[in-house]
């Protein structure tokens, strides 16, 4: 910078305004980043959306999909014959079943509405009505329901045993639960990905557009502030919150649902960081032009909604048809979710996520550069 001797007035002001060398000056990038952080923490509602909301969401979903002891399948026994109670008792001796005696009408209704998996009725063996031992069990169920098909096997087994069937081969059972295979294990990395996207975009978009409407950006443009310092400060401030954000969700998931990171925590944080920068870059780009909050909100939703659906936060993206997969794979949220899951659930090393990291870095860098170019200061 050409700091030649400044001619007349500035020096003269010395007495009143100018304290030539003493003017303590922090690096503008530090001051700008501090300003971002202060503005954020002084907005309680923003703090809630970033920290509170994902934890509430994880809690609600974790409760809904919690893994308890496998539930017994409910089965109805029609009360048309005198031995309905004995039949029900025989079924309930099975570890997997719970039988209830109902009238045929009730049983039909319960099956139709899914409250029972199967109905055991009684039919009379053709042409043999006189002997009461000769009745046949009549299983009614919907073969399209997996629980009904299981109930069919288990009920039959229970009734045949009760009637005296013997096992012909000895078997031994070994059961175990694989950690990292529950829904909550799948969900937590997805929630972290979603949250990094949301806070990156909302956190930047509103602040920038508001600063534009109230002419603060114009005022800053009249200072010697370097413009890339300003935009970079938004990305840097995101990094600081990122650590807190991710830590809050992880700690919650660990203590409440015992969700663990199977790979290295450092890799996990590093991927979160790159993902966060990518979304901060995209957020900057979205907020580069709009003049109204409505305008920027619309753009944000337009960008985020497809990723909410497609990027495998709540369910695996592989459910979408093959021809969509290449497109889905290059979405930043897909890259982030897949990489986070690989480290968290499969224990993959950082290097195994090179493709995801490359996709995220490209999104972040290209968005930032375009944003810097097209940014509207007034």
């Amino acid at each position, binding site marked *: 910078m050409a700091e030649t001797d400044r001619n007349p007035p500035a020096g003269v002001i010395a007495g009143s*305004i100018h304290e030539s060398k003493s*003017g303590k000056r922090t690096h503008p990038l530090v*001051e700008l980043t501090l*300003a971002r952080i*202060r503005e954020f923490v002084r907005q309680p509602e923003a703090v809630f959306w970033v920290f509170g909301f994902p934890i509430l969401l994880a809690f609600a979903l974790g409760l809904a999909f919690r893994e308890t002891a496998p539930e017994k399948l409910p089965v109805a026994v029609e009360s048309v014959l005198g031995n309905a109670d004995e039949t029900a008792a025989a079924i309930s001796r099975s570890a997997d079943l719970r039988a209830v005696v109902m009238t045929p009408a009730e049983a039909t209704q319960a099956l139709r509405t899914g409250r029972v998996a199967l109905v055991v009725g009684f039919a009379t063996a053709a042409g043999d009505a006189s002997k009461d031992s000769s009745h046949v069990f009549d299983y009614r169920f919907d073969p399209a329901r997996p629980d009904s098909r299981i109930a069919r096997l288990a009920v039959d087994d229970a009734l045949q045993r009760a009637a005296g069937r013997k096992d012909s081969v000895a078997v031994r059972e070994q059961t175990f639960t694989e950690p990292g295979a529950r829904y909550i294990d799948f969900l937590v990395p997805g929630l972290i990905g979603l949250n990094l996207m949301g806070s990156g975009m909302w956190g930047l978009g509103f602040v920038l557009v508001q600063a534009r409407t109230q002419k603060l950006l114009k005022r800053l443009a009249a200072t010697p502030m370097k413009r890339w310092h300003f935009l970079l400060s938004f990305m840097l401030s995101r990094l600081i919150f990122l650590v807190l954000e991710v830590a809050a969700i992880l700690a919650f998931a660990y203590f409440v649902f015992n969700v663990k990171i199977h790979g290295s925590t450092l890799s996990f944080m590093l991927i979160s960081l790159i993902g966060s920068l990518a979304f901060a870059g995209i957020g900057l780009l979205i907020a580069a032009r709009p003049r109204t909050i409505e305008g920027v909100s619309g753009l944000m939703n337009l960008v985020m909604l497809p990723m909410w659906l497609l990027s495998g936060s709540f369910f695996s993206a592989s459910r979408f048809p093959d021809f969509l997969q290449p497109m889905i794979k290059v979405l930043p949220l897909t890259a982030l979710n897949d990489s986070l899951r690989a480290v968290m659930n499969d224990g993959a090393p950082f290097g195994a996520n090179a493709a995801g990291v490359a996709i995220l870095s490209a999104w972040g860098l290209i968005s930032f550069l375009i944003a810097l170019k097209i940014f509207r200061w007034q």
Partner: protein
Amino acid sequence: MAPQSAKRGALRCDGLVKKYGEVTAVNGLDLEVHAGECFGLLGPNGAGKTTTVEIFEGLTEANSGNVELLGMRWGTGNDQEMRERIGVALQQTELADKLSVEETLRLFRSFYARGGDVDHIIRLVSLEEKRDARVGKLSGGQKQRLAVACALVGAPDLLFLDEPTTGLDPQARLQLWGVIEKFRAGGGTIMLTTHYMEEAARLCDRVAIMDHGRVIALGAPAELVASLGADQIVEFGVASGAEELRESPLLRLPGVTGMRVRETREADGGSYLLTVSEIGAALPALLAELERQNLKLDHLTTHQATLEDVFVNLTGRMLRDG
């Protein structure tokens, strides 16, 4: 850099034109502001003051014309240096609500390679007690003083203030005038826009009166007032329904140097403005003349001639009518 010419002309422009679509905001403007003076741009809303100042500040590009600021031009590789040396208070900037006064000033201070001490600036604008208050909680006058403080924190050579006291109560205005005068006393150059004549008269060494994107009068406030050739203004109206006032005899009255009709929005006719050099002779003669024409006086006031009267005299409109 910063040649000798900058000493005489802190700011110079010629042939400045800025159009927004069909509207010509600035229409061939020539100005020169000397180093160390306080220069006022005066005019009604829409006269092109803000556009002009924003072109000087490097925020808006002119369609044609030249601007030379401290011996440099925008867009020739010196923008950074130029921004280092000017201080800007825009019309109605809202600084970040959630930051405190001190934090805001430290932030702005960090942008400038050289500049004042933040504590000192806070004292200068008398915001010591509000140092830790959030910007959102400040009164209008305090916010405006903070905006000026942000403009001063880089110890500028040239300070731009766009309507710094609009909307402030008289006391807040006085406080701000004090700050501006201190900067001026330290040798700084100021360009301010205003539509308050008393502000221009008090603060400015020279003023340019702008209307429709052009300068229609330029000079020291006292000179401009003197150019009216009168030191008193008599404003009067006649009762409605009366016969029409015949104007020509009034101009022949003793001590009367000029006359204007000012339209008002009310239906009961307009007001007449007489510029008068000898009030003692003119007033009795005016009353006698009205009597002779058989007109009934509705109202009559007199005041010392001001810049406002200069503007009215030049345009036939009041400044604040727009």
